[in-house]
């Protein structure tokens, strides 16, 4: 349903005629929802004016960056942040970047690499907003999620502009918690379902040292991009182990010794997806790697700041792996493949290949907790996938899971997904059932699991009724109930 003429005109006055639309023609490209209107603000003042208008008319709104995923209620005002895509500052000295929501990771990374810097990239990939945080491949060296936000400029659900931390007192971006107001507990996340109410308009994110080259010298033509050689003082390896316990032993020691730029617990199916340039290749490479592997494994990239640093890291890595009876998968040591994996897994450009390419859909259960325990949960979830694979409902990945540790690796993310064809109703139903059962099992075993849909009361009780507190808190900020509530927070 389109907005009333009066409201539409008011919003049009804010963003300009060219940047508002409620024509049904565009709706399929906006998640297929029958939105009230899509508006494209250019700056914080416009965002604020939109939010205030929404409050005045008690109209719900949602702010969205690339909008890779998500479903949005009909009739809402969809604030597409596309035009807010500026890199405001890359502060080399204090190692932070101030950006707007629609700067994508690939862009910020390109600019940061030139300066010998990088930042946490959520595993979703370089096609997503660099500002909206998450967890990903580089978590061991860049930490993850809310650790990486410094000061934030936030338009509250009522349309006030709040500047957190140092920004609120001295107009500087270097700290999110003081000397100005710290509102970290509210500005939790933008990865569904933990969506912060209101709109982030700018944020400073932490930068880290980048030991890789200022740019990769990519060769070849799409879909096969290679590096002419493995960049100096960088190395990528996939290690597989005789057991999960042994794998964990190596993983935690590598974390504690801060050896890796990246430690990603890819399964071999995901490695295959990274290398393969089409679905058929993907299947072939997976079968080969599945035979070659010793057992469960992980993918590692090390990068030295000097020849000595690299030599030390390599030696330590190899010793730790050896002591855990791990072995490098030889076929992946081929320099061309190694180069592909280094470029792809530092820039995080293959998540689309890993998830959507096969059948067009995937369903995932990410669990955040102590890595060694969540791995055990994931083994069970993987076993529960096997009948679906056998029935041909989901892509054969050997029933595998993946994940990675954050910082020193004790806490981390463990995730498991099923790839399937969404047009296949039987497959869809089987995957939904699997997802429900395994999500439930995660809660029963007291892990944080990200679940879509309604969460049952006993789970909420187990989480100290956090959902009630959250709702009460967001209501206080949002008396007109216009901001997105997010999903079931746990």
């Amino acid at each position, binding site marked *: 349903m389109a907005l009333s003429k009066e409201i539409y005109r008011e919003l049009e006055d804010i963003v300009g005629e060219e*940047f508002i*639309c409620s*024509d*049904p*023609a*565009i709706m*399929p*490209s*906006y*998640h*297929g929802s029958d939105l009230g209107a899509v508006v*494209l603000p250019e700056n914080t003042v416009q965002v604020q004016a939109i939010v205030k208008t929404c409050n005045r008319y008690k109209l719900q709104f949602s702010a969205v960056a*690339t*909008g*890779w995923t998500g479903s949005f209620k009909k009739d809402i005002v969809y604030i*597409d942040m596309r*035009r807010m895509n500026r*890199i405001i500052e890359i502060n080399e000295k204090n190692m932070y970047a101030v950006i707007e929501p629609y*700067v*994508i990771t*690939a*862009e*910020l*990374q*390109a*600019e940061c690499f030139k300066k010998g810097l990088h930042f946490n990239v959520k595993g979703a*990939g*370089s*096609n997503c907003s660099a500002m909206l945080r998450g967890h990903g491949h580089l978590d061991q060296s860049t930490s993850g999620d809310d650790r990486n936000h410094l000061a934030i400029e936030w338009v509250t659900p009522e349309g006030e502009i709040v500047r957190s931390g140092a920004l609120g007192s001295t107009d500087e971006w270097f700290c999110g918690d003081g000397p100005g107001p710290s509102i970290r507990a509210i500005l939790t996340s933008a990865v569904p379902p933990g969506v912060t109410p209101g709109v982030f308009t700018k944020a400073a994110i932490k930068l880290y040292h980048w030991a890789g080259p200022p*740019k990769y010298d*990519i060769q070849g*033509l*799409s*879909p096969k*991009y290679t590096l002419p050689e493995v960049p100096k003082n960088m190395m990528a390896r996939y290690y597989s182990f005789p057991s999960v316990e042994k794998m964990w032993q190596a993983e935690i020691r590598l974390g504690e010794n801060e050896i890796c730029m990246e430690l990603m617990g890819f399964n071999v199916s995901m490695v295959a997806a990274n290398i393969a340039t*089409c*679905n*058929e290749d993907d*299947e072939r490479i997976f079968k080969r790697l599945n035979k070659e592997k010793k057992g469960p494994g992980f993918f590692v990239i090390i990068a030295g700041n000097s020849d000595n640093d690299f030599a030390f890291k390599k030696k330590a890595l190899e010793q730790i792996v050896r002591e855990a009876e791990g072995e490098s998968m030889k076929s992946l040591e081929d320099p061309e493949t190694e180069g592909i994996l280094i*470029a*792809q897994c530092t*820039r995080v*450009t*293959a998540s*689309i*290949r890993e998830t*959507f*390419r*096969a*059948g*067009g859909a995937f369903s995932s259960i990410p669990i955040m907790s102590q890595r060694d325990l969540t791995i055990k949960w994931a083994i069970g979830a993987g076993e529960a996938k096997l009948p679906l694979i056998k029935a*041909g*409902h989901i*892509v054969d990945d050997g029933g595998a899971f993946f994940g990675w540790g954050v910082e020193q690796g004790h806490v981390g993310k463990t995730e498991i997904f099923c*790839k*399937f*064809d969404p*047009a*296949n109703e039987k*497959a869809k139903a089987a995957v939904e059932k699997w997802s429900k059962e395994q999500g439930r099992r995660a809660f029963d075993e007291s892990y944080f699991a990200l679940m879509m849909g309604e969460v049952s009361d006993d789970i909420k009780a187990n989480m100290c009724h956090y959902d009630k507190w959250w709702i009460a808190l967001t209501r206080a900020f949002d008396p007109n109930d216009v901001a997105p509530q997010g999903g079931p927070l746990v």
Partner: protein
Amino acid sequence: MGLEQYQGDVNMCCRCSACKFIPLQHVKSYDFSYVCPSISRFQFHSYSGGGRANIISAGLKNGFNYTDKFLDIVYNCQMCGACGVSCNYAMDMELQEPINELRIKCVAEGKTHPELERVIKTLKKTGAMVPVQGKRGDWAKGLDLKDATKEKVDVLFHVGCLTSYNKDMHKLARATAQILKKAKVNFGIAGDMETCCGGRAYQMGYEKEFLKQAKMNMSMIKKAGIKTVVTACADGYHAFKVLYDKYELKGDLKVLHITEYIDMLIKEGKLKPKKALDMVVTYHDPCRLGRLGEPWIHYKGKKIPGDRFVFDPPKEYRRGTKGVYEPPRDIIKSIPGVKLIEMERIREYAWCCGAGGGVNESNPDFAEWTATERIFEATATGAEAIVSACPWCEVTLSQAIEENESSLKVYDIVELVAKAL
């Protein structure tokens, strides 16, 4: 053919936005990260390749509602194929083809653009996509070239509408003739008998008119016993090589772009650029010579039921891998004194000049905006000139240069070669 065959493909779109950008691994800066002019200019997701796929997917399910906005989305696209290349880095699905088919469907259902209608009316009347001044063969006056429709030649040089009728572009045809003569190629032209290749009509969605032109051309070619066609226009190249093949009209006609032909002549020692030109240039890949210039793949097969979007026999996608990228670069490098510096967006992920898909005619401001972006990128390399291999690129880029009072020069590659001989 038809849009329906792509239902499965458009349903595969996962809204990842890769289609908006150059392949993500190639992003080297904030300034030149985008590849799709339409999303960059019009901003709503609907103008991106993925947005278009979403619209097609919904339309095939629920029917199409041709609102003004819908048609604005449909016609504000250069059909340059860049979205497809970026998508196909990661995904196995057709993207450019359903976008082409949507245009064709709109035209077939009378949902046309008035400016494009006007162009097609001219085509029907004159056999040309541009206003006709004088005769098609006027550019060749005094050159004493063979008439390929009457005399036996090894090569037909198909000149194209813009070069033939825009007097400022006659220099390209004359330079091409000069080069071919110098290499002692037994070539001819069709002169006043030449007619439009139909390629730009196809880009605008006018399939019927395209087919009429294609059949006329192939009938003339067959009658004259011509085995090889060389075009100096990327649109012409794409039409003869890819579209005629797609519609099974090409037979075993050999189609070469002038850059492929000159490159071959240089490598065979039949041409030798000798004069030093002392200039720093950058090269602009025309979309229909580059990513869209790769051969058509005839495919018949069925989706294998099950978990993956795979086909029996396995489907090979046109991902821009086999376009013409090296010959023009090799030619430039063979000219003494010329230094080539690359822009950031090149080869299969080159930024379009803006002229394609009828945008030049339907929305000249958008065409110029697109060309201006390219001019900025070329200027950022430090080059003094941008070299292309298509008259449409040259005209559009020149206009943007003039409008922006830039000091950048524009050359077609044949001009450089002719100067250096």
